[in-house]
């Protein structure tokens, strides 16, 4: 156990630049402290928002006489998210970490290394679970004033909630990774397999929600239907419900013991086969009969672009994280086209005049989620220093990274705007304007992401998940992007003129783009070489 704790401690010492903040010197320390303060402040802000959100949801549930469903809903949401995270991160976090060779060469059993990686994964997901569950449980306690049993069981089970989805997600993700490793294009196969698995999980959740038409004749029936739906979405939620709210001791024991037993089994089996699993996931096929053939020359920009595209597809976690938004956008467009967007227009008749304005905003939001530039430089990590030795202006390196994002975003934007316009019955005259606005957003977020990455790089990392999922680049790019869509959207709606609004938005976007690209042009070179 001592060694597991040592390895976990080692990992978290480098996590979120904590050690740099504590022991660094000069600008590095100030920067690390600044980042830590920013992260804590933003987390606190979201936490307070969640408290209010769950409080009002609790009031709504209380009117149905089922306030206890609110924490169960939070549990199901947290567990499904944990399951999805676990599936997608299993490779880089559990097996393909940078110091694998070092750790496996130490005189400690493989099961200790496996347990420490699982524990790291669990702790990260526990933080997320606490973030969701504490406001929900707090709101429930304030609204209903429950007895001692609730406090004891709710607090005890809290630590066990993420364990089960972590184990299930890890095993599923591992199976997909191992299967994909048998293919020649291993990374692509991993991405496809992971995406398929995620679609299956999302589809099964959706299926569970629609499995039975809700009987909404009585208030009690609504509560019954919601609880049945939650238990279908995440079956262990029934155990949690019985343990915490029905005071069922057997359910409590099963809820606590099951993840412990599975974790032990996991550590035992994976620990035994850790080197074999690592080898299967990391080795590549080799041929020894290569002959140099004809070679085509291309421009430095195209060479950088091709390299960046290869770098992108070499990282399943990077692809998964940035492809989800555009894929969702295409699925949503297809769904609306098949279901008939008239339904949406009929539901919100007062918004019909605003459709040309809002039409590009939906793609913009989802494409912001898929922006690759926020971490594009960070992903190059240690290689970036040697790129500075090439006879190139930094401008070319930055443009190449912009082009990668535009390669995926612009075609997706074009398809989705056309399909959405057709589905929602938007007049064809409005389509060019919608495309211009959408393109404005894509260009702006591409440049903004790159600027954010230049100012907040994370060049030293242990695995790609740290960059893709947990770096300031990703977080700030998403946050800024969302604000750039939401704030002007609300402001323009408040002005109340759907005829002028698109042109105002376009003017704002032009101004934003001009500023962002000017900064990139003037400061990009210096910022790049200062990385």
């Amino acid at each position: 156990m001592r060694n597991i704790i040592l390895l976990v401690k080692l990992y978290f010492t480098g996590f979120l630049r904590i050690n740099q903040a504590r022991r660094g010197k000069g600008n590095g320390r100030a920067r690390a402290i600044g980042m830590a303060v920013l992260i804590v402040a933003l987390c606190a802000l979201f936490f307070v928002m969640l408290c209010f959100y769950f409080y009002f949801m609790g009031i709504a549930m209380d009117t149905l006489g089922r306030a206890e469903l609110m924490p169960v809903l939070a549990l199901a949401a947290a567990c499904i998210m944990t399951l999805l995270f676990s599936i997608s991160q299993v490779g880089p976090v559990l097996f393909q970490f940078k110091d694998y060779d070092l750790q496996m060469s130490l005189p400690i059993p493989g099961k200790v290394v496996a347990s420490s990686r699982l524990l790291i994964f669990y702790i990260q997901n526990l933080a997320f679970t606490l973030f969701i569950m504490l406001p929900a449980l707090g709101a429930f306690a304030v609204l209903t004033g429950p007895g001692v049993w609730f406090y004891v069981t709710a607090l005890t089970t809290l630590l066990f909630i993420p364990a089960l989805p972590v184990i299930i997600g890890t095993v599923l993700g591992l199976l997909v990774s191992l299967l994909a490793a048998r293919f020649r294009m291993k990374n692509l196969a991993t991405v496809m397999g992971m995406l398929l698995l995620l679609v299956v999980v999302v589809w099964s959740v959706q299926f569970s929600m629609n499995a039975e038409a809700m009987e909404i004749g009585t208030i009690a029936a609504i509560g019954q239907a919601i609880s049945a739906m939650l238990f279908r979405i995440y079956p262990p939620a029934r155990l949690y419900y019985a343990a915490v709210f029905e005071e069922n001791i057997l359910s409590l024991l099963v809820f606590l013991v099951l993840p412990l037993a599975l974790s032990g089994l996991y550590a035992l089996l994976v620990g035994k086969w850790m080197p074999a699993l690592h080898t299967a996931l990391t080795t590549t096929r080799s041929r020894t009969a290569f002959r140099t053939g004809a070679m085509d020359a291309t421009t430095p920009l195209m060479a950088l672009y091709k390299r960046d595209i290869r770098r992108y597809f070499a990282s399943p976690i990077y692809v998964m994280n940035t492809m989800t938004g555009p894929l969702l956008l295409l699925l949503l467009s297809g769904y609306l086209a098949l279901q008939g967007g008239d339904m949406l227009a009929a539901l919100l008749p007062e918004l019909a005049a605003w459709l040309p304005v809002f039409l590009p905003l939906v793609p913009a939001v989802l494409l912001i989620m898929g922006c690759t530039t926020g971490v594009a430089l960070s992903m190059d990590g240690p290689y970036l220093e040697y790129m500075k030795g090439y006879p190139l202006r930094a401008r070319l390196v930055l443009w190449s990274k912009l082009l990668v994002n535009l390669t995926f975003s612009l075609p997706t934007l074009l398809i989705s705007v056309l399909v959405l316009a057709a589905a929602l019955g938007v007049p064809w005259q409005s389509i060019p304007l919608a495309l211009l606005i959408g393109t404005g957003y894509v260009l702006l977020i591409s440049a903004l992401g790159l600027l954010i990455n230049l100012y907040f790089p994370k060049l030293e990392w242990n695995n790609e998940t740290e960059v893709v999922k947990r770096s300031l680049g990703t977080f700030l790019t998403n946050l800024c992007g969302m604000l750039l869509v939401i704030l002007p959207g609300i402001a323009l709606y408040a002005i109340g003129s759907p005829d002028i609004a698109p042109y105002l938005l376009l003017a704002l976007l032009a101004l934003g783009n001009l500023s962002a690209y000017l900064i990139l042009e003037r400061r990009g070179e210096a910022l790049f070489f200062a990385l």
Partner: protein
Amino acid sequence: MLRITQFSKTYKGGKKAVDDLSLHIAPGDVFGFIGHNGAGKTTTLKACAGILDFDAGEILIEGRSIKAEPVACKQGMAFLPDEPMLYPYLTGIQYLNFICDIYRVDGETRKRRITYYAALLEIEADLGNLISAYSHGMKQKLALVSALAHEPRLLMLDEPFVGLDPKVAFTVKQIFSDFCREGRAIFFSTHVLDVAEKLCNKVAIIKAGKLAACGNMDEIRGDRSLETIFMELSENA
């Protein structure tokens, strides 16, 4: 070819890595840069390669300042770090193609040079494999082929002989000799004093960021071995 004048570099926190260093590497020189760990060799090489900014002094490559005209300077040189940083997700040939594109080498020329150097270093058969599957030595060979493929006039290398097997090390020494015979120059750091003694016509010894000795190998060495000189300077300077 390369002129370093009163070069100094102080890292954040006040550590002076290099202090008032001046060197001149002329065309045809194989210039060995010797010093103990942390003496400032890598810092100097990185500054010459335009990777590292510096506070004082001037570095001129073929008469051009690396600070004022970095792209023009880099176009005529190649730098190989001690740990070959090659993109693991590319195959060997993809990496070589990438480098040739960056240095604008045309298709026919790159094929000829890559085939020549890859065969010489016995790596051609592996060029179709991903770099992630390469051993340390293979990565070093690939990095060397990439540096030679665009025919730089100045080659700068940080510890180029670490990890090479004796046969490859011999080939590399041959390549270096041929390279400089054509009027180009090599500036490299090394701990292997025997190699420096046999290969270099000029040598500089650096201690704690300051130049301890510099000149023609024969003048520096006299009738003693380079190892003896190095040990004396290390202890006395």
